[in-house]
């Protein structure tokens, strides 16, 4: 490999340097019909799963074809997307907040043709490349984090759990038969880069063992006061140990205070807590972000732990499917998953979804815990 210079001169790093220019202006990338009708849209309709119609006050129409993706995508895959956009949508394409693709076309026929084309594109293993769907009262793409593909703190994989889950709920991606939209989200540790804490169904990687302590290296790799300060429960304190006749400055951990958040590890690489048996997934449900009808709400933990079962996480996906199907059968039109659970009562939610309730589901973390306990005799048998 010969090093190819871009023009950057390491001896004069400031020479010709361009910085702080920010993103390109979005206006450069709007398809003509979008640009012309910016801020002047009248209404929209979902023509069929994955196809949206937007009508402008001018009478202009644009059809959007929406397709799911794996989010982690190669340059080869992106070039395929470009080829499709060049062929069908004037060279424009959009990514949604939930990692779907969207192509704008001019007519309903073109939209249906594109939908058929996208649904025909398959990987050699049989998976769709661009399955069309993700609209209306269904499941749309799962937003997720990096997992074992690229992250240093995950308790599970992200791309794999998402693939396994979306395979199981695929019908609800391509159809709109649920009472309301269901947003599934995935975060591979409590840092929640994926912010799953307000999702209808959340897949959350968790650790269950206190950190290991790499005594011989800790003082060289970490600022001990920062590691101590990082612990939200005060479980970490400065300490010294004797190893092989040498004294090392290190930390000690009060294990019963550890809630396995991993914040100490974020501050100090000598405190790893990942563990093949200890790590796994918590399932949370009933969160939402929209202000529609009811207020935005946090997700609630309903399954404290399922083990990591790569590659297909059968316990996880079976549980999610059961919750989704029970909700679909039982909830009213427009009722989000959490609103349904609130209406029937959470004791009934566990019964209907056939989920055990354990002491792990009773909140014991600081003040917010109090607001989750029941202060009434209004309960159901």
């Amino acid at each position, binding site marked *: 490999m010969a090093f190819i210079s871009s023009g950057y001169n390491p001896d004069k790093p400031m020479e010709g340097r361009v910085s702080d220019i920010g993103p390109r202006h979005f206006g450069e990338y709007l398809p003509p019909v979008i640009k012309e009708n910016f801020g002047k849209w009248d209404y929209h309709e979902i023509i069929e799963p994955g196809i949206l119609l937007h009508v402008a006050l001018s009478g202009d129409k644009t059809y959007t074809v929406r397709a799911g993706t794996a989010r*982690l995508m190669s340059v080869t895959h992106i070039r395929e997307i470009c080829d499709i956009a060049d062929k069908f949508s004037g060279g424009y394409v959009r990514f949604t907040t939930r990692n779907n693709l969207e192509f704008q076309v001019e007519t309903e026929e073109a939209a249906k043709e594109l939908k058929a084309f996208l649904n025909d594109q398959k990987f050699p293993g049989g998976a769709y490349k661009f399955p069309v769907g993700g609209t209306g009262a269904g499941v749309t793409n799962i937003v997720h984090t990096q997992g074992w593909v690229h992250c240093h703190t995950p308790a599970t994989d992200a791309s794999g759990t998402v693939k396994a889950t979306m*395979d199981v709920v695929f019908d609800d991606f391509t159809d*709109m038969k649920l009472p309301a939209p269901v947003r599934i989200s995935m975060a591979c540790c409590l840092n929640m880069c994926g912010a799953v804490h307000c999702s209808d169904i959340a897949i959350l990687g968790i650790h269950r063992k206190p950190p290991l302590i790499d005594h011989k290296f800790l003082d060289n790799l970490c600022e001990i006061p920062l590691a101590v300060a990082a612990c939200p429960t005060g479980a970490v304190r400065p300490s010294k140990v004797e190893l092989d006749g040498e004294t090392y400055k290190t930390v000690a951990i009060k294990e019963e205070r550890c809630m396995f958040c991993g914040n100490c590890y974020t501050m100090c690489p000598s405190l790893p807590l990942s563990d093949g048996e200890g790590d796994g997934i918590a399932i949370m449900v009933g969160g939402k972000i929209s202000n529609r009808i009811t207020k935005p709400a946090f997700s609630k933990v309903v399954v404290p732990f399922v083990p990591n079962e790569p590659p297909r996480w059968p316990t996880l996906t079976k549980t999610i499917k059961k919750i989704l199907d029970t909700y679909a059968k039982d909830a009213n039109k427009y009722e989000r998953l959490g609103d349904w659970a609130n209406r029937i009562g959470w004791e009934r939610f566990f019964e209907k979804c056939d989920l055990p309730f354990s002491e792990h589901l009773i909140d014991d973390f600081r003040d917010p815990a109090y607001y989750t306990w029941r202060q009434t005799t209004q309960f159901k048998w």
Partner: protein
Amino acid sequence: MAKHKTPLLDQLESGPWPSFVSDIKQEADARAKNEQGLDYQIPVDCPDDLLGVLEMSYTDGETHWKHGGIVGVFGYGGGVIGRYCDQPQMFPGVAHFHTVRVAQPNGKWYNTELLRNLVKIWDLRGSGLTNMHGATGDIVFLGTTTPQLEEIFWELTHDLEIDLGGSGSNLRTPATCLGMSRCEYACYDSQELCYNLTQEYQDELHRPAFPYKFKFKFDGCPNGCVAAIARSDLSFIGTWKDEIKINQEVVAAYVGGEIAPNAGAHAGRDWGAFDIQKEVVDLCPSKCISYDGKLTIDNKECVRCMHCINTMPRALKIGDERGCSILCGAKAPILDGPQMGSLLVPFIEVNKDDDYQAIKDIVENIWDWWMEEGKNRERIGETMKRLGMAALIDAAGVPVDARQVQEPRHNPYIFWKAEDVEGGWERDINDFRKRHQR
């Protein structure tokens, strides 16, 4: 021919959902063939080695990526996340595998020219693998080596006029819904505001000066398509003050079954005929709608939840006196539990003509306060919880308003200030003793 055996990952190639394993394999093959004759600047087989290390994690149930490491480009404190494999001998292609965050066009609209140019850089200088997009909104280039970082930055800024995104204790890349570009509900130009504030605060975005990360997110309406209320330290959520506009003829068309409710979102199942009483009137959270052949909304009582508008988008339109609400302090659970954004400013005009100065004043007031009062690694939501909503309101320089609370306080432990009390706090003990014996 695959470099590593991946029997577990191979099982993720079947099933309908797009397979990231198939895609990485496809990239591994493409790089091995190298039909373009590229002089790849990082190991050609890094996609193979990524599959190898991932398979190892599937066997062990543990990650094989080492903790961070400080890498980046000159003069910036963020935008690149250092990453090293903890089994470099086995997987040399990904021994060094840093992530580069790249600023996305707001609303994530692209043309193929831009996408092709972006992937061209990443083909030559990176792994050929990306996230489109990361959870915060950036384009994420997944995996390169340290010597390539300045080169990538140079090509991005010089050839594509695009900057890096944020990481570390700074302003993270702001994100917005698609707003006015394709949505009739957008109450303000969320993309333009996002763009303007992103440009204004480039220094805060690239050079960490904050106690911890800070996120702006922009939702054009209360439907919240970018989840601003749940995951941004400052959320700008579009709203309106005046009346919902009603077209009674179109309401009748919904009632008569000529137009599917909710824009056809429930078409996958037979829910029976549209029942306006049950589906709109009864579900209104503030019970301000009635229907007797004509739809009436008592707008003064409306909380603008969007349900009636979402259900009959052709008949009902958002009001004309538009702006946004600003909420503060949302975050995921680390460290002190999850927090939803709390309403700081019920309504503010989104005024491009004065370069959004009213909004920038609030932003800067809040940052000044947080940089002064915030502890290391404390999100502003935690600072406001520790010091109180009233302190935040005071610092932001916005009026106190009943809309900022769900209900008044439960306890009378009010932190009165000396200036709140007649005569202040300065008192004379001898004067007191004249009236009260020891």
